C-alpha cells in the first residue's frame, strides 16, 4: 500500500481493476444475501412442506424444492454462511498460527530457517486437498475439525509467505539501514518489518479463501466433514447427485453453481490484485507459483 486511504482504494477499484471490482461485488453479494435472506424471503431453509415436494424451478420457488419440500433458494443462500464463515475462520486461524513461525524463521535465518523449510517441503509432498481430507476423516466429522484442518494447512502457506517476505526485506537494505540507525529489535519488527508484510499477506487472502472453499466443498461432497443434512453446498450436491439422473437436476445443480460463482468471484479478486500489485515483469513469478489445487 502506498499510503492510499482505504475508501479511495475501494472507490477507485472499478477503474483500476474491473476484475477485482466484479470479484469483490460477487463476494459481497453472497454476504449480503446470507444476512438479508431471513428479512426478505418468505421460506426458511429448514421449513419442510409436504404439499410441495420436488417442484422444479418456478416463480414461487425460483430454484425448486427438495424431496421434503424445502425451498432450494433458501437452502442455497443458507449454504453461503458455511461458504463464507468456514474459509474466513480458516484464514484467521492460518494467519494467526502461520505468520509468527514465518516471522521467526525469516528473522533467525540459518539452520532453524533451513530446517523449517525442509519440514514444510516434506509435508508439501502430500497433496494439500488429500491431507485436509485425511485430517478431518481422522479427527471425525464436525465443523470445528473442518476449520482446524483447513486452518493448519493455511498456516503452512502463510508461514512460508511470511518467511519469504521477511527474508526478501532482510536482504533489501532498508532493514540494514534501520539497524544501523540503532533501532531496537522490537521496534525493528513492529515498525519496519510487520507493516511492510501486510500488503503481501493480504493480497494472498482471496486465493487462499478460494482454496479453503473448494476443499470444504470436496469434504461435503465426499461425505467427510459436515454433518448430514446441513446446507453446505458440497454436501447438497452429494445429496442431489442421484436425483440428477432421474430428472430432478436442480437439486445438485444450483448449490454447485453457487460454489462456482463464489469461487469465481474470489479468483477474479485474486487475479485483479495480482495485476495491481505485480506490475513489474519479474514479480509476475508470484502468479506462477500461486495457482494451486
Amino acid at each position, binding site marked *: 500500500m502506498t499510503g492510499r486511504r482505504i475508501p479511495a482504494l475501494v472507490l477507485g477499484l472499478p477503474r483500476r481493476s474491473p476484475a477485482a471490482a466484479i470479484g469483490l461485488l460477487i463476494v459481497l453479494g453472497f454476504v449480503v444475501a446470507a444476512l438479508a435472506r431471513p428479512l426478505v424471503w418468505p421460506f426458511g431453509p429448514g421449513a419442510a412442506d409436504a404439499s410441495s415436494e420436488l417442484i422444479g424451478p418456478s416463480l414461487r420457488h425460483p430454484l425448486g424444492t427438495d424431496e421434503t419440500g424445502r425451498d432450494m433458494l433458501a437452502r442455497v443462500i443458507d449454504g453461503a454462511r458455511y461458504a463464507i464463515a468456514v474459509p474466513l475462520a480458516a484464514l484467521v486461524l492460518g494467519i494467526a498460527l502461520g505468520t509468527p513461525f514465518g516471522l521467526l524463521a525469516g528473522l533467525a535465518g540459518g539452520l532453524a530457517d533451513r530446517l523449517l523449510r*525442509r*519440514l514444510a*517441503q*516434506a*509435508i508439501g*509432498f*502430500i*497433496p*494439500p*486437498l*488429500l*491431507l485436509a*481430507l*485425511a*485430517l478431518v*476423516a*481422522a*479427527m*471425525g466429522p464436525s465443523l470445528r475439525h473442518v476449520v482446524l484442518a483447513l486452518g493448519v494447512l493455511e498456516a503452512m502457506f502463510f508461514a512460508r509467505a511470511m518467511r519469504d517476505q521477511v527474508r526478501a526485506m532482510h536482504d533489501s537494505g532498508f532493514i540494514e539501514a534501520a539497524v544501523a540507525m540503532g533501532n531496537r529489535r522490537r521496534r525493528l519488527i513492529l515498525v519496519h518489518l510487520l507493516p511492510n508484510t501486510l500488503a503481501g499477506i493480504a493480497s494472498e487472502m482471496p486465493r487462499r479463501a*478460494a482454496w479453503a472453499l*473448494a476443499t470444504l*466443498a*470436496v469434504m461435503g*461432497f*465426499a*461425505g*467427510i466433514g459436515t454433518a448430514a443434512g446441513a446446507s453446505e453446498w*458440497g454436501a447438497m*450436491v452429494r445429496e442431489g*447427485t442421484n436425483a*440428477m*439422473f432421474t430428472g430432478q*437436476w436442480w437439486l*445438485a*445443480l444450483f448449490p*454447485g*453453481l453457487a*460454489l*462456482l460463482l463464489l*469461487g*469465481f468471484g*474470489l*479468483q*477474479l479478486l485474486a*487475479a485483479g490484485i495480482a495485476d495491481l500489485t505485480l506490475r513489474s*515483469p*519479474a514479480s*509476475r*513469478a508470484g*502468479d*506462477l507459483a500461486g*495457482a*494451486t*489445487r
Partner: protein
Amino acid sequence: MERPGRTILRLLGIAAFVFLVIAFICFMLIKLGAAPPVVLLGGPNPMPEERAQLIAEYGLNQPAVVQFIRYVVRTLAGEFGRSWQTGATVADDLLARLPATLELMVYALLLGALIGIPAGVAAAFSRGRAEERTARGAGLVGAAMPSFLLALLLLLVFFRWLDLSPAPSGRLSVVLTPPPTITGSYFIDAILMQDAAAARSALGQLILPVLTLALLIAAQLTLQVRTAILMQLDTAHFAYARAQGMSRDMLTGIAMRGAAPSIWAAFCGQCAALLGTTAVIEYVFAWGGVGQYGLEAMSRGDFAVMQAFILLSAALSLLVHLMHAGVRRVARLRIRRA
C-alpha cells in the same frame, strides 16, 4: 566440481527425512482418531482374536515411540495392514487399483497439456485483445470450478440429456469381461488383444472422466503458461527479435524456449497435485481406482487404507518432483555445453 557420491548421499538423506516426516503424519492420523486404534484399524466390530492380532502386530500396548518405530519398519517392508472394508491387504488392494488411476491420469495430463499450453500461448500473444480476455476468463472459471460439479455437468449433458455417453459405472460396460492385463490400460490392452467391443466400451467409459480432468488441468495451465510467456515478451532479447521483423511463428518459438522451464514446472505442479482431483472424479464415475478407494476409506474411517493412500500420494508427488528436477538438470547441462 561436483562430486556425484556426495550428491547421492545428500539426496538419500533428504529422501529419508521426507519419508520420516510423512510417515509421522500418517502415524499421527491414528493418534488423532476419536476411537481406540483397534477399532480404527480393525473396523467397528473386531473379533477378539483379530483384536489380539492387531495389538500384537502394531504393538498397540507399547509406548507411542515403539509404535511409531514399528510403523516405520512395517511400512518400509511394504506392509500397510488390512482394509476392514475389503478384508484384503491394503498393498494388494492398491496394486489392483493403481492401473485404473494411472490410465485416467496419463490421458488427462496429455489432453490437458494439449489444450492448456496452446491456449496460454495464444492468450499471452493477444495481450489486451478479446481473445486474451476469453482465454483468461475461461481459465479463471476453470480454476474456480469444483471438480465434481464439472463431472456432473458433463454427465447431465452427455449422458442424461444427449445420451451420447455411457452411465458412470466404471471402466468397462458391465456385460463385458476385462481384457488380460498387459499394460494395465483397458483400452490399450483391448486393442492389443484385438477385442473391438471391449476397446470401444473402454474408450466410451474413458471419455468423460478424462475430459473432466483434462479441462480442469487445462484451465490452470492456461493461466500459468500465459504468465510465463508474458514474462518472456517483456525481455530485451524478445524485443530485439521482434524489431528484426521475425515471423509470428519464430517469435512464438523464441518465447516458448525462454518460458520452457516455467511451463515444465507448471506441468509438473499439475501432475503432483493431480491425485486429489482424480480421487474426486473417480468417485463420481465409480472408476474403481486408488483415488476412489482412498476417498471411500476416508469417509468410512478405514485407517489402514487412509495411511497407505496418503503415503502413496506423497510418493507420487515425490516422483514427479524428481522428474522435474532431473529434466531441469539435464536441460541446464545442455545449455552449458552449447
